[in-house]
């Protein structure tokens, strides 16, 4: 125990989370799937201070003299997976007191020590959009996270250059958000409530514009409308839960009327309206499950939807919707889509780069390219094979999951205590304390 306390103290001394190494690290010998380029059979990836500094065939990449070499011969190395729709961290579905709650934030409700967060790392997920639920028309603001090792939400946040915490806004139509009063009872009413909210937000924005920065002329602060103004100004993307063909078209109609940026989520009837989605230039965050959708509006959920959307030219990312599907099985979404006819290239793109674009983080994550964050995973084989395992997960150059570590192994396969909240996940502690 005293030894452990000492180790924790050491961890604290060098910073709470493990830091990216000062020396460059060179991962050599693996097949590298950069995603934005063709597979590299014998590749070298060099990372330094959390960033990718070189990637390419072993022959053409020079390993710096001071670099730490990591031999990953026989393994497959690809970008960390990006999940564009998840519910990890024990966040609530939504506050049932009213149908529209754009002021509520996942930020204020997520437990980063929840076992599900480490299970996501075990599944190779390094960036995730954590969403509130679909039981309300809008259950609140979503949160984009980097799954860095950390015991507080702040350590996992993604921020833009101005320091703004990144996330979107959840909206939902169809049957989940149709309930008894005060919720809408029909699709027509649902759409009307959305339009009313957007009209109010337009009015609010106009009042702010007219105030020309004069504090006494500004309208009183309204947290819900402020969020919607961000949406109208293109600063916050709407993540819209929608299954049925007509509900999908309703989202596109709202989008056209109010001009916000939107991602269609789930999209069970995607094959029926693929042309319309493509024409609107709207991306899709697709769920792929191996069985029927479990409700009327999801009855057309199919492993073939990815193919239909790909053929129409739609940008398709996959999501876990954890706990609808387990984050540890995220690779499966792409594999099943390939079973349904989607191309291997687009399916792997859908786990990584497509979602990076969907979350507008494509300059930082989603592919293995020089200058991007060193978020990558080491796999035992082909990412689309059921027999392959995520062996290690790295975020910004720091290992956050290692299957050879007994604690991580427990999370990866399950077992006694595997679903309890994590007391603490410190690589520094784990690597030194238990071995």
């Amino acid at each position, binding site marked *: 125990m005293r030894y452990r306390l000492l180790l924790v103290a050491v961890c604290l001394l060098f910073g709470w989370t493990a830091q990216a190494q000062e020396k460059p690290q060179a991962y050599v010998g693996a097949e590298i799937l950069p995603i934005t380029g063709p597979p590299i059979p014998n590749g070298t990836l060099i990372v330094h201070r959390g960033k990718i500094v070189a990637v390419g065939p072993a022959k053409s990449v020079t390993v710096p003299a001071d670099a730490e070499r990591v031999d990953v011969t026989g393994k497959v190395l690809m970008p960390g997976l990006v999940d564009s729709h998840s519910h990890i961290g024990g966040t609530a579905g939504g506050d049932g007191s009213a149908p529209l709650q754009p002021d509520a934030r996942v930020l204020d409700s997520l437990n980063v020590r929840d076992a599900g967060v480490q299970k996501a790392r075990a599944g190779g997920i390094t960036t995730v959009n954590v969403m509130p639920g679909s039981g309300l028309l809008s259950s609140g603001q979503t949160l984009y996270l980097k799954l860095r090792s950390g015991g507080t939400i702040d350590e996992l946040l993604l921020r833009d250059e101005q320091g703004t915490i990144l996330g979107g806004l959840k909206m939902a139509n169809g049957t989940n958000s149709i309930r008894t009063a005060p919720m809408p009872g029909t699709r027509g009413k649902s759409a009307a409530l959305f339009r009313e909210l957007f009209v109010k937000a337009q009015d609010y924005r106009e009042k702010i514009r007219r105030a020309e920065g004069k504090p006494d002329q500004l309208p009183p602060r309204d947290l819900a409308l402020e969020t919607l103004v961000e949406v109208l100004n293109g600063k916050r993307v709407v993540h819209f839960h929608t299954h049925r063909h007509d509900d999908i078209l309703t989202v596109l109609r709202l989008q056209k009327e109010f001009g916000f940026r939107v991602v269609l989520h789930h999209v069970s009837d995607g094959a029926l309206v693929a042309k319309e989605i493509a024409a609107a230039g709207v991306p899709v965050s697709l769920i792929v499950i*191996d*069985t029927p959708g479990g409700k*009327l509006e999801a009855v057309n959920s199919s492993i073939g939807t990815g193919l239909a959307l790909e053929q129409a030219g739609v940008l398709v990312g996959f999501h876990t919707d954890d706990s609808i599907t387990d984050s540890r099985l995220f690779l499966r979404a792409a594999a099943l889509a390939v079973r349904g006819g989607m191309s291997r290239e687009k399916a792997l793109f859908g786990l990584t780069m497509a979602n990076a674009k969907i979350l507008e983080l494509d300059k930082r994550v989603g592919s293995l390219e020089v200058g991007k964050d060193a978020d990558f995973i080491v796999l035992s084989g082909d990412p*689309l094979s059921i027999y392959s395992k995520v062996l290690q997960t790295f975020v910004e150059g720091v290992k956050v999951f290692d299957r050879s570590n007994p604690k991580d192994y427990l999370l990866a396969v399950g077992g006694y205590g595997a679903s309890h909240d994590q007391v603490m996940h410190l690589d520094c502690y784990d690597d030194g304390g238990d071995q």
Partner: protein
Amino acid sequence: MINRVQGSGFRVQGLRFLWLLALMTVTAAIAGSGQCLAQDLAVRGETVYTMAGEPIRNGVVLIRGGKIEQVGPEKQVKIPAGYKTLTARVVTPGLIDAHTTTGLSGYLNQPGEQEQVEKSAPIQPELRALDAYNARERLVDWVRGYGVTTMNTGHGPGTLVSGQTMLVKTKGATVESAVLVPSAMVAVTLGGAGFADAGKAPGTRAKQIAMLRAEFIKAQETLRKQETATTEDKKPTRDLRVEMFVRLLKRELPLLVTAHRSYDILSALRLAKEFNLRLILDGAAESYLVMDEIKAAGVPVILHPTMYRSTGEAENLSMETAAKLIHAGIPVALQSGYEAYVPKTRMVLFEAGAAAANGLTLAEALGTITMQAAKILGISDRVGSLEIGKDGDVVLFDGDPFEYTSHVKGVVIEGVLVSEETH
């Protein structure tokens, strides 16, 4: 392990005739199945997993009159003239889902097609799966497309004693034409999932076992009265509920106990020992904690789906449990189970694949959804392997059956090509 149809009004022998009759009269009813009449078939495969010995390279399975006539390497087995030939990369026996509610629960998840649990009373073993199975349910069609040809389906977890299960083939437009064993098991749920609504019994684990013991003691008394009655009129009057407990006491059929927590599993073993019951453990998320006890009791396990959600009482499940149990010598079959939300059924093919990726060999994993399942369900004389005299139930794949990127290319039940679509 399960006695066939005793005194329940069904004769399996007669069913085959009924099946043929039904086929001749309602051929159009089996939508999308292409041809419906059993014909002589030769199924060729680059790899044939017979599940009775090593896989055969370049093998062939001959099916005549719905039964397997010959199995072996192509060089040794001549395909007679007039046999329709099907060819695939990989051929396996028809898959068996050892526990599901498919056919009672439906594809659309709507009221009216959710017949797997009756909440009106905690103990209702008299509820028969036969009276609730929709042979035309789209979900049956769905699982068949992914290779499932035999299911143990019926009343599911959710009340202390929810009812009976039955064994069916995923064929036919009526339950009569599908059924193999009309009364296969009595389903019991221990732990939280088997509690009644607040304020009603059972609300605790101890009460669950007390209620079950009381039922078996009552059945013992009934049995004694039946055996000691000197004349017909002194025999106890019929009681459908008691009758089922009597049948369990007589070991005519097993008790299927869904229990995830290790201590609930031990309670099931204790109950089975006290009343000398045939027991099959179901779900059994924490079974890896009590393997010695399960093995000593000689009890098989119909394990939760490998990729089942690790929440609630199943929070401690492991994807390696199938491997642990099998390597400890405990018979294991996999199931699709039942979940209230998504998915509406799991595919045992994928669940076995995940088990293969977590400690089982391909053959061991395939066994959990073929021969081992057939043995646990007591129908290994009919299904589970490709052997002469068994039912001509075959699945055709275009690659490793467990790879997500492979496809099911065809499904044959008793010599009838029931699915030709690619899944």
